[in-house]
């Protein structure tokens, strides 16, 4: 099969790989570039757990051709926390018990990030709408919604404990 070169930035770093034509962004990021923060849940665009940002827009990596991301900026959860400090959304998920098994968490975080960047003070309905494409099967929607809302309020987290060392 013909190999094609793909060059993009992943969380701010220049990356390039030769891939089979038709490779999905999910396969490029996970199998070639070793970024396993995005998860493969359904590979048919229904579960949202592979949600990443391409030039700031949310994309399902399982339905996005890697070749279409050439010269674009791709963001994953791996780029959320810099220098050891957590993104406010990560801290909010931590404090609000908004992750149980953890498999849907990366997609939830990226979908929520897009929402808050466009709309820093969303209503509850806005949050529900923004997360509507992301399935959680441990039935944790309510804590997840509360976590996102707590970031927009800039309020103190519900549980007082910070992250344990």
């Amino acid at each position, binding site marked *: 099969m013909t190999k094609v070169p793909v060059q993009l930035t992943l969380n701010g770093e220049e990356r390039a790989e030769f891939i089979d034509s038709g490779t999905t962004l999910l396969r490029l990021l996970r199998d070639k570039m070793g970024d*396993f*923060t995005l*998860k493969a*849940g359904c590979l048919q665009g229904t579960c949202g*757990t592979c949600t990443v940002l391409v030039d700031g827009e949310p994309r399902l990596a399982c339905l996005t051709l890697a070749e279409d991301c050439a010269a674009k900026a791709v963001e994953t959860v791996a780029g959320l926390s810099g220098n050891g400090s957590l993104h406010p959304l990560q801290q909010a998920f931590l404090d609000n018990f908004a992750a149980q*098994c953890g*498999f849907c*968490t*990366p997609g939830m975080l990226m979908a929520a990030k897009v929402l808050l960047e466009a709309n820093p003070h969303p209503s509850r309905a806005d949050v529900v709408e923004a997360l509507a494409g992301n*399935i959680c099967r441990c039935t944790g929607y309510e804590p997840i919604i509360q976590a996102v809302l707590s970031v927009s309020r800039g309020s103190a987290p519900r549980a007082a404990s910070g992250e344990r060392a």
Partner: protein
Amino acid sequence: MMEIRKTYFADERSDNGLKEVGQSRQRSDVPGHIRGMTPFYADRQIPGLLHIRMVRSPYHHARILAIDVSAAERHPGVKRVITAKDVPHNVYTILNLIGIGPEDEPVLAFDKVRWLGEPIVAIVAASERSAYEAAALVRVDYEELPAVFDMEEALKPGAPLVNEYHGQNNYRYDSGECRKVRLGDVEEGFRGAEFILEQRYDSSPIEHAPTETTGCVVVPGQNNRLTCYTGTQAVFFTLDNASIILNVPGQHLHFVGGTAGGGFGGKVDCIVEPIALLAAMLTGRPVAFIYNRYEEMQISSPRAAERIYIKDGVMKDGRIVARQVRCYVDAGAYSRHSPYGAQKSAAHFPGPYTIPHVSIDSYCVYTNRTPSSAMRGFGVTIGDFALEVQMDKLARMIGMDPLEFRFVNAYRDGDMKAHHQVTEGAALIECMQEASILANWPVDPRYLQMSSRQGRG
């Protein structure tokens, strides 16, 4: 908000020294989750990884006449084609480890297929695409057989025999064709009852649908040791079953698991690991066997369908005097965990109520449906649905408030349970009192004065 109400049974409590119970604590694995760094079974870069696709039965019930894998073996990228004869101990059953037999399920089907989707041939190839293509090249000749999908039809004389390893379409317990519970004389109880209500309750199979599909990745190591990264909820059970199926000592198998992307009981069967381990042994290469979403929904074991008949005799004052339950649990084509689930249902009926005359029969039935297995409270949850709907219907029938009806019948300390055990440590009355207040569902004050410690006397 969680609150432990310590006013109930205060004199029996000895929890003053507890430090963690009742406190809100951060989960130890959440820091990994929120960074996307929790290692699920597929989250490793493994050079030279091979991929498995399974050839599955398109029939609910059929005899296998011939299997031709020659075209698949020649397909580019295919490294190995695995059939039943390659599996050292092909016919197994999961609960054999705790003495529940007979072995009744092939890892790969050879003489018959007993459900639509049953695995027959495993393709091991260098790419997923090659594996899919080669799976489509396998030729299997079948002679279709009559299939049975309804549990009561399956138990009738002359029904198609689903599973020859059992000899009949029900699991045979040491107590006979079903699990039985008897207290008093249920027919005498019905004769003395002022009202009788008999109802039938049916449930469908339910799929757990975890976001992470069932799967594993096996990496061969030094000294004949294989490392199996798996999403199983039952690491040691799966390791021991794989050891039996592959006829290799357990110390050759290194299982890394316990991190499941959702499980809910759907990842306790030993299905993908043995075949992936075998593929790695036969090729000397790392191998992934990962269900796609279709397989997760259609192939992995669901919660069993159940059919439950409940017949109750009740008095005008609300006392249930007789309860008869006949419960059928649909195992599908193979046992997996269903004999245990059906047994649990018998242990759970007649619910948390004191009834003097009880008769319970719980059957584990084989049909040509997808094998069912564990799911949160299996054998109990559907029974509770049926029981509590029945309780509401009974209350309505005699014109009583449904919550007060439950107070009348709730088991209390000293009551004889259907299983011939004297009740102790009951707290149902107190839970209902609290629920009555919280739900703003008022009951007569005399029910708020009741205590689980005072039996009906």
